[in-house]
């Protein structure tokens, strides 16, 4: 049986779907609450930093064709560290996706299904995640490829339709709470790009390993543009969004979308599209969780494990008892764990791998010279 390999568009769709799902949740709102009116400037600054970091990451992966960060970890530090790191990846992805599903299901219950238990809604999401993972990578990547353009269109629609109500003065003062808060403390907003971490797990799935750089750059640019658009829309429409938003901030924008007197209240359509995008997000993340687990245990078939991890996902997502627990998670774990895990631990592994590989190559060259 031949292994399914991802094309460049499928890979981009998978990465961007994972990243953009965080915009659908409350990410722009969190960024605004940290840096206020200077968020646009802050995001451009952070985008440049992230671009440099991930450009460097793709350079490292050029030395390790068809290998992901777990393979690089094994290469640099051995099997034990690899296993610990892999468990870290699984825990990180499980917790993040569990809270994503919880936040989204909670908002869905709040908006449309006040009489339905949140557990049932989460169960539906997890059931579909399991089904998609049973069908495999081809189904997951293709569904991401289909849904992504639709998500992007909805976001542009929201942005364009709310454009007439923009109050541009809200961008001022341009430095928000101050230069120090924007450029030094605001560096913490780099967590917004942490979902690009998926890039480091994707190389073995690619048909052409040299495509990784293109995938990373395109995904980052697309995500960066949409994140900045989301922040602009929220900033220009609401004077103090943090005070009103207990639900999906982008939904609050979607509620304002009207096209004349004929097309009104189309937020239900947007919600439907976002539900599908969350299905896609969960299935992609679950795929990488299973893939990582397979790497640790060397199991032949990972499909039976789908139900185990889906059950764990369900349990974790049911842990927060109320909205304040979720907010606490968003403001602490998601922010700091993402920065530590993605930008420190993973970078340290890649830097170590790069140095070791370079030394080996140099040694090889020297020995060849000696031999000649």
């Amino acid at each position, binding site marked *: 049986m031949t292994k399914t390999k991802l094309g460049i568009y499928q890979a981009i769709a998978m990465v961007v779907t994972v990243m953009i799902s965080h915009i659908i949740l409350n990410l722009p709102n969190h960024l605004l609450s940290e840096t206020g009116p200077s968020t646009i400037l802050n995001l451009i600054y952070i985008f440049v930093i992230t671009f440099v970091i991930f450009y460097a990451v793709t350079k490292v992966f050029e030395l390790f064709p068809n290998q992901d960060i777990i393979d690089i970890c094994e290469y640099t530090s051995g099997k034990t560290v690899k296993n610990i790191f892999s468990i870290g990846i699984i825990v990180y992805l499980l917790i993040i996706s569990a809270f994503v599903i919880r936040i989204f299901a909670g908002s869905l219950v709040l908006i449309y299904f006040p009489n339905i238990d949140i557990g049932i809604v989460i169960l539906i999401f997890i059931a579909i995640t399991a089904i998609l993972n049973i069908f495999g990578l081809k189904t997951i990547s293709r569904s991401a490829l289909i849904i992504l353009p639709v998500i992007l269109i909805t976001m542009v629609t929201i942005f364009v339709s709310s454009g007439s109500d923009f109050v541009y003065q809200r961008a001022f003062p341009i430095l928000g709470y101050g230069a120090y808060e924007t450029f030094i403390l605001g560096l913490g907003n780099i967590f917004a790009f942490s979902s690009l971490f998926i890039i480091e797990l994707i190389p073995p799935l690619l048909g052409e390993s040299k495509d990784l750089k293109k995938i990373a750059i395109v995904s980052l640019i697309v995500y960066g543009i949409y994140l900045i658009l989301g922040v602009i829309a929220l900033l220009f429409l*609401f004077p103090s969004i943090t005070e009103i938003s207990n639900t999906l901030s982008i939904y609050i924008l979607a509620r304002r979308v009207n096209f004349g007197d004929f097309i009104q*209240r189309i937020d239900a359509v947007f919600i439907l599209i976002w539900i599908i995008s969350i299905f896609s997000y969960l299935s992609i993340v679950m795929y990488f969780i299973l893939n990582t687990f397979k790497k640790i245990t060397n199991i032949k078939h990972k499909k039976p494990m789908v139900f185990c991890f889906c059950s764990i996902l369900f349990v974790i997502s049911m842990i927060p008892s109320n909205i304040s627990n979720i907010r606490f998670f968003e403001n602490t774990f998601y922010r700091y764990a993402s920065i530590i895990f993605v930008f420190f631990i993973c970078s340290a592994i890649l830097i170590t791998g790069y140095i070791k590989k370079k030394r080996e190559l140099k040694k090889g060259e020297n020995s060849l010279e000696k031999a000649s």
Partner: protein
Amino acid sequence: MYGDQDELRVSFQISIPSQNTSEGGSSSDSNDTVIDTIDCSSVESGISLANSFVSKKLNLAHCKAIVISEEIAESGVAEIVYTLTNNIDVRPDCNVIISRSTAYDFLSNSKSEIESITAKYYEIIASSSRYTGYTSNITLSDVFNGIDDTFGEASAILGSVTESNKSVQDLSINNDTISGETTANLGDSSQASSKIDVVGLAVFKNDRLVRRINCY
């Protein structure tokens, strides 16, 4: 307005759903309405109390207008506006009307004979500003933004109830001048009728009503 014992008196004008089921329309497509009034400590508790004695759950998703009495507006509307903005049911395009009389009086007098759909009626009286220029189509999100903005102030639609003893036999809209105010006759056509007029703007400083702008 302030209730006898509690801080607020909240009135709900609700379409009677049973009148519509046979006709196949939704509850908001009704001319028959009932007004329930509750004395309560806050808008949120008013909604909860209303749910406790109305046989169906109140859904504010089709709420077209929020009427606040002048008396409350003068003492500050921030709490009410924040509560309603945070309520996921209430849509941001719902109009805010500051009534010179009590909200109950305004609602009980706002009966249209030429527009059979109650929800549509409220939509029209606000959007009529597009061709009359006598007021502005101000929504809940506009008021919320106005209250919170650092470079602007809030305003709302100004509404009032006017009395007329004139009997009107036909259903045409009469533009009468009563006590120097132009009013659209939207009241009962066969007997002494109360009417509402929606002309002018209520102007706020922070969240308190400070001025009324009429159209003359």
